[in-house]
């Protein structure tokens, strides 16, 4: 486990920079995590994706299906990759403070 610091944010992260404690996430933390994902600015579109992921995570304890994220947020997978270069699971989920999906993904 490592500590990641950005401005006044100080969080515990794993080797890939995913949050160890998703519950301490807030918008400032999202900005901090975005800085590690080659995302310079969190636009309204970025927030739409991040907030959708957060809401789903609160309800189900996991990220939504990628297809569901696309359909419900109204973005194509390519647009999500354009926003979060590491993609929905590894980029967008990381910024939203969700745990890293594992298995055959």
């Amino acid at each position, binding site marked *: 486990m490592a500590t990641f610091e950005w401005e006044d944010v100080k969080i515990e992260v794993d080797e890939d920079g995913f949050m160890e404690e998703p519950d301490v996430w807030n918008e400032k933390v999202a900005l901090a995590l975005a800085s590690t994902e080659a995302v310079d600015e969190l636009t309204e579109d970025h927030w739409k994706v991040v907030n959708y992921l957060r809401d789903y995570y609160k309800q189900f304890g996991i990220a939504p*299906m990628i297809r569901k994220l696309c359909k419900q947020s109204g973005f194509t997978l390519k647009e999500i990759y354009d926003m979060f270069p590491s993609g929905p699971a590894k980029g967008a989920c990381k910024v939203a403070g969700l745990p890293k999906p*594992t298995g055959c993904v």
Partner: protein
Amino acid sequence: MSSEENLKQEDLLKVDYKPAAKDWQDPTIDFEAKRGNWCYSGVLDSLDYLDMPHPEKKWAPTDEDWLLPENWKEIILDGLRLRLDRFRTLRLFMDTCVRCGACADKCHFFIGSGDAKNMPVLRAELLRSVYRKEYTLAGKLMGKMVGARELTIPVLKEWFYYFYQCTECRRCSVFCPYGIDTAEITMLVRELLAEVGLSIDWIVTPVANSFRTGNHLGIQPHGFVDSMEFAADDLKDIIGMDVEVPINKKGAEILFIIPSADYFAEPHYYTLLGYMALFKEIGLDYTFSTFASEGGNFGLFHSHEMIKRLNAKTYEEAKRLGVRYILGGECGHMWRVYHQYMSTMQGEQSNLEVPKSPITGTVFENAKTTKMIHIAEFTADLIKHGKLKLDPSRNDHWTPTYHDSCNPARAMGLLEEPRYILQHCCNNFVEMPDNTIREKTFCCGSGAGLGTDENLEMRLRGGLPRGNAVKYAQDKYNANILLCMCAIDKATLPAVCDFWAPGVQVGGVHEMVGNALIMTGEEERKVDLRGQPLSGKEGAKDV
């Protein structure tokens, strides 16, 4: 850390096959210099959940001290002795190799890395040298002269490095005149490593999730239902009809088990839509289960004990729901477990029946013991009996080629059925070169728990032979999609294709079935299951 952006094709193509100057018996590895070629260690919470031993804090392969227990050597040697007694195969594999070299150039990791210790013969020798030292007279007396090595911490670290550079794909075994199964050697070394707290997270966290929630991803029952209902709605938008998705339905005829990535990730998801469309059309009386919500069994990559613990739910759930038999989806390694371990581990299941297709009446005698059949057998049988109306022109936008996923091909011999299905569902099906398909198929390079991003360089090196064959089909026949029947393939072949054969997509066999299937009462199909316009319907809007 390696990422696809800073790995270049021309660099990875410079493979030097000349053995390193240093003595092969020297085990030292510079883990820092080899970043991109190994995986992170197991997360402690997951190890605790599984009651697996681990040090007080998480270690990293780059650390000098791997925080081993004081009696680590005793644990390993006792464990090895126990396994030599328990598994006659292991003793045979330790004793019979004649160094003929038939396996040497058959491993995708050796082909892609040139590292001599990735030759299956030498990989096995890493264990065999210790076996020789401890358990043979020649080794005890003559030591190094006869290739015997003392078990030391650097040797243990070398095991961790190379036995997590084997995907247990068993291609080498096809060529071994003695039938030595390097995958079994890898499995047993991984078991030993786990006993002293050395494991990788891409295996132990999916295993812990699976133990807790039934699937690798940790999806709970309400999340499972949400995803399936969403998929049914999505399919409705394409076919214009309601789709019912039975979940935990007691008394259903068939329990259907799929890898969890099918209801989470892309491109797996389109295969899920394919299954749903097929079952709707034939009116199959089946059910999904929120408990047996994973076909995959990462226990296979960890230890025999773990295979058994995770596999137990399969028959338990079949019994609870009162089904007649089990049907399994497009997963790779799950078939190694179902086909070769399950009935031995769990015993005779008298409450289940020999699988019989309710549509064609075919009795699957081959599954008399396990009571479980593969969906490719099931679907091929439907087509053979003329029970499906198929319009292969709906797949005309694809020129597919087929990657035999290692385990369905080599562990259960499922070579003809997927091809038979594809030849009926696609007009443009093409094959890759003979020595790269069927039982000689090349691994994706990311199986057996190695499909994680920190291991990307090794994955792409291991993916070189497969990628090269895909490139051949792309150049020669304009192949534009690589189909497979394994969720790990679907997750990791996109990176292999992007790197070695850019422009080739990855998909599943039942995605093609779903596209081609003419359904009773359907609306005119304008898009495929991906929502892409069909050939000749390019004006159609994506849904």
